[in-house]
């Protein structure tokens, strides 16, 4: 029993140490964003600000607000669309085994193995030729398409767990394709949606390569603007730090609201392959 207690102590010690390593950068961001730019220097890096200086947040917000809105439009539409289409695909592929399904599913998964770089030049040209280059709709479309393989995979595995008898019974009762989807499949897949939404929201919100190559100035998402804000050598730390916090808020919020269902959803779907 004492040995058991010793282990337990060791475990808590280890995760506490790790937690400190995980929290230190966050602590530094928070305190630096709240310091007067004149008061930022090496000797007081670790100290709390003497005067709480909220001005940086207002300044960062003024600079980033339009890009923040771009990111919000981009992320919400791309997340919802790819989640919805992914769940429809998963439903068809797992419950309506039609001829050709065995070809289409691997072909969709194939998309997960494509390095973004491989298709970047042709994609850029294609978007330019179709007039979609530079704006948000083009980037939304790209994120929806590149999100589909993973969302389809998660939903397909998720729906494989739903007994076929349940759907057969509904079919006998005369429920249509969409009837079954909206009355049975959709309500049962809420935790699948949680996993997909958390995954897609963080992916799309944080994505940089597509964003920097495929959008022009006014439609740039916040990651591109933040990279520019943080890029200069002479920048005062307080401003990018405040911008960093503003940028992180939406993903944190999504996780705070939906996070408790995340493990449950992962358990139900994505780890079976």
């Amino acid at each position, binding site marked *: 029993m004492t040995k058991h207690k010793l282990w337990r102590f060791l475990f808590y010690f280890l995760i506490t140490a790790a*937690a400190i390593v995980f929290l230190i950068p966050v602590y530094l961001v928070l305190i630096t964003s709240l310091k007067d730019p004149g008061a930022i220097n090496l000797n007081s890096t670790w100290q709390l600000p003497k005067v709480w200086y909220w001005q940086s947040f207002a300044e960062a917000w003024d600079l980033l607000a339009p890009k923040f809105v771009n990111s919000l439009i981009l992320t919400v539409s791309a997340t919802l669309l790819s989640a919805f289409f992914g769940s429809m695909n998963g439903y068809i592929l797992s419950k309506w085994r039609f*001829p050709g399904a065995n070809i289409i599913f691997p072909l969709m998964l194939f998309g997960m193995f494509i390095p973004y770089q491989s298709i970047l030049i042709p*994609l850029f040209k294609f978007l330019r030729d179709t007039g979609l280059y530079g704006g948000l709709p083009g980037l939304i479309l790209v994120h929806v398409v590149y999100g589909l393989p993973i969302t389809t995979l998660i939903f397909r595995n998720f729906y494989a767990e739903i007994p076929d008898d349940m759907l057969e019974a509904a079919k006998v009762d005369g429920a249509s394709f969409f009837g079954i989807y909206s009355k049975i499949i959709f309500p049962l897949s809420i935790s699948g949606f949680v996993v997909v939404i958390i995954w897609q929201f*963080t992916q799309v919100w944080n994505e940089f390569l597509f964003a920097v190559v495929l959008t022009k100035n006014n439609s740039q998402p916040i990651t591109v603007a933040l990279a520019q804000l943080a890029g200069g050598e002479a920048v005062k730390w307080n401003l990018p730090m405040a911008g960093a916090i503003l940028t992180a808020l939406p993903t944190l919020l999504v996780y705070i609201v939906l996070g408790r269902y995340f493990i449950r959803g992962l358990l139900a779907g994505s780890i079976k392959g």
Partner: protein
Amino acid sequence: MNKQRKIPTFWRFLPFWLPAFIIYSLFIVWPLLNAVGYSLFEWKGLQRGGFIGLDNFVRLLTTEPWRSNLWRAFKHNIFFFIGTMLVQNTMALFFASILHSLKRGRQFWQNLFFMPHLLATVLVGFLWNLILNPLFGPLNKALKMLGLGILAQPWLGQPLTALPSILVVNAWAWMGFPMMLFLANLGSIPASYLEAAELDGATGFQIFRYIQLPLLRPSIIIVTVLTFIGNFNAFELVFVMAGSDGSPGGATDVLGTFFYRTAFGTGQDAISMGSSLAVIMFIFIATSSVLFLKLASKEKVVYD
């Protein structure tokens, strides 16, 4: 209902998958085929020249400086993959098994370790650039405060430590996700297995090694494949922390930055060489992932 029955199943479902299929083909398959096409031609800026077969590939693989740049970047990617498996994923498994054994407060620790995963890579890179800065970075300052000043380094400024530093930062940012997958997998192992082993007098380590670890196979496979794909795609963090030129002295150059420099640089042959490199990267990642999945899925785990 009756009317529907008469239509063959193939045609009946066409409307449901065809639109997705067309869009998917336009945005994924078509660009990929195009990349292959571009790589077979000579390019001068945006002007396409004549068909030259595999000449671009030959040039990339056999002439300098292409050849040594490609190999250097490739080796760095391999290093990054192995390092990430050892550092990030081992840590993830370790913390997942600790958290799984906790009776209280698991949610709190879980959220804490997952948090960096929610931050944009651009932001993570910028943040750690400041922390690692040799002149005014808090890491070196902290080391000096602890009397370990001798360990203070220009972390990103010297070839020996630059890539390992980025690797550790990447592990910091990503560990939460594999940890979550392992946690979910651990949760799916029936408690009766562990109780039976405990009754037989197995130690905590034996339970982990002989019962949990073999049953973690599904998540280990997924994590390995995701790590592999992610690392050979690695670009953002390296770009933010070390720029696209692989500084210092090419020590951080990976395939992603090498490609970015080639394809979006000022060279007249940007499109031909960029596309050839893209095709090589694709073939390598796709074949290795498929091979690995084939090998890994030969035996399946059955719980009952």
